[in-house]
């Protein structure tokens, strides 16, 4: 029984314990080692001595004690070496925490350290997955289709920079928070999208990535209830609610208007919609909250036709004003087609395409093909489908476009 309890604590709490050990020991490697030592001690002692009253606090103390003890022994053997021990100076002398809140603060410190903007963006992602979420290097490598040694090297370099440039282990101060939170949210959303997009890799690993991103966002919202953090969590929950309906069992793409809405996860939609409303009530709107609102309008509509497209176009206008981007403008053109018909949408889209930035973006050509098809302008539609297929590397998306093109050629 004790063994399964230790197992459960390891799964549930080991990353929190790890985060606290980093603060107490001032070093990632020592903390990792101390974490394993602590669990080894638990496996040895708990079966005979029984479960401690507060197992997490016990493990933190044990890990810290073992590590300091080991450092002392090492120093005794290496007293001839005259370099001072840096980690001793960095280590926090405060007693090990025994309440949950403090442990969660340590996790948040770890998140902010791993997502520090002084680290390379791909290193932020790898480091967060490795240190905060506890994924193995091989798991990260599999999810990102990158060789494991490359991922390992990114992590090693990032840790070296944290140490050498003295990136602090702390939640940023109030005046730094908005900018730093943006960096954290960006990493969380990158992790989620990697898990959500069907671009590549093993689908089971990828669903796990989305799950990790949602767990991280929940932690952040709980400790920093900023509107954009709520907005991002809402956006991810609303996407996640449709995960099962986005493809057929054999991997064929199903577009939003053809998805089986009865299979959308209502609990996730309700939670996402509530969070979106909370973010909007703050009056401090950011791009994640607006995207969440768009996703919520879709999620709450009984069908594609019965969607409040006026509302969606309005939200895209707002988003475009806040973060001008040709991709958002393209989405707005699609919403205009739904609201006013394909002719109006095509006018907007062609003006966008004339600007040139979307020329190599397959979804712009796919949208043009679709608008032309609806208008009966078949030869233009065919041409746009061919251009979109040329630009698409994802197999399911290619097959989808090829099917549409074939249907058009027949008629």
């Amino acid at each position, binding site marked *: 029984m004790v063994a399964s309890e230790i197992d459960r604590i390891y799964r549930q709490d080991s990353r929190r314990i790890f985060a606290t050990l980093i603060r107490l020991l001032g070093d990632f490697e020592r903390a990792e080692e101390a974490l394993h030592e602590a669990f080894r001690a638990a496996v040895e002692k708990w079966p005979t001595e029984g479960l401690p009253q507060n197992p997490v606090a016990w493990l933190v103390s044990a890990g810290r004690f073992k590590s300091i003890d080991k450092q002392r022994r090492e120093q005794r053997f290496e007293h001839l070496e*005259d*370099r001072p021990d840096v980690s001793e100076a960095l280590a926090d002398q405060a007693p090990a925490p025994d309440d949950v809140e403090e442990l969660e603060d340590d996790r948040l410190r770890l998140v902010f350290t791993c997502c*520090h903007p*002084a680290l390379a963006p791909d290193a932020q992602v790898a480091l967060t997955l490795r240190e905060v979420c506890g994924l193995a290097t091989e798991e990260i490598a599999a999810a990102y289709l990158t060789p494991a040694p490359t991922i390992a090297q990114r992590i090693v370099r990032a840790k070296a920079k944290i140490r*050498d*440039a*003295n*990136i*602090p282990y*702390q939640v*940023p101060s109030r005046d*730094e928070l908005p900018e730093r939170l943006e960096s954290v949210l960006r990493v969380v959303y990158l992790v989620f999208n990697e898990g959500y997009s069907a671009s590549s890799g093993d689908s089971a690993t990828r669903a796990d990535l989305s799950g990790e991103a949602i767990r991280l966002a929940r932690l952040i919202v709980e400790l920093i209830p900023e509107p954009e953090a709520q907005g991002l969590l809402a956006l991810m929950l609303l996407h996640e609610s449709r995960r099962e309906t986005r493809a057929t069992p054999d991997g064929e793409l199903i577009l939003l208007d053809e998805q089986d809405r009865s299979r959308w996860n209502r609990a996730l939609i309700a939670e996402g919609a509530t969070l979106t409303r909370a973010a909007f009530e703050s009056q401090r709107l950011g791009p994640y909250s607006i995207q969440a609102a768009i996703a919520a309008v879709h999620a709450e509509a009984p069908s594609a036709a019965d969607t409040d497209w006026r509302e969606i176009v309005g939200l895209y206008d707002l988003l475009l004003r806040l973060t001008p981007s040709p991709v958002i403008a393209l989405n707005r053109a699609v919403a205009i087609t739904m609201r006013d018909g394909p002719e109006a949408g095509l006018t907007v889209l062609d003006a966008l395409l004339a600007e040139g930035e979307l020329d190599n973006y397959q979804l712009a050509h796919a949208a043009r093909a679709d608008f032309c098809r609806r208008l009966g302008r078949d030869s233009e539609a065919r041409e746009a489908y061919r251009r979109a297929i040329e630009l698409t590397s994802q197999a399911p998306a290619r097959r989808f476009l090829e099917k549409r093109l074939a249907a058009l050629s027949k008629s």
Partner: protein
Amino acid sequence: MKYLCLVYLSPEEWTSAPDEACMACGNEMRASGHFITGTPLHPTHTATTVRVRNGRVTVTDGPFAETKEQLAGFYLIEARDLNEAIQLASKIPPAKFGSIEVRPTRELQVSTQQAAAAAAP
């Protein structure tokens, strides 16, 4: 910890941050105990790069790297950690026109004897 803040500016922006503002910035940092030393530099056409290869000293005209932005000066500052160093660097006037590279400094790794000898009067 000491951080070196390297000020980079493109030739067009070279005089955008007035010397008075940079002097005031240094004085402010000195008053708060963060400033160790600093100086503006002449533009890169005055630069010489020195290399030693196989025991031979080679000297070439020009800066080490050809980039649009050139090293325009530096501040050596004392900061608690990288976050404080970034905050201080963001107040350096040319940060508005060019870029500030923040580098942690390090100690030379030498034996205690050599360090003591160097410190002796």
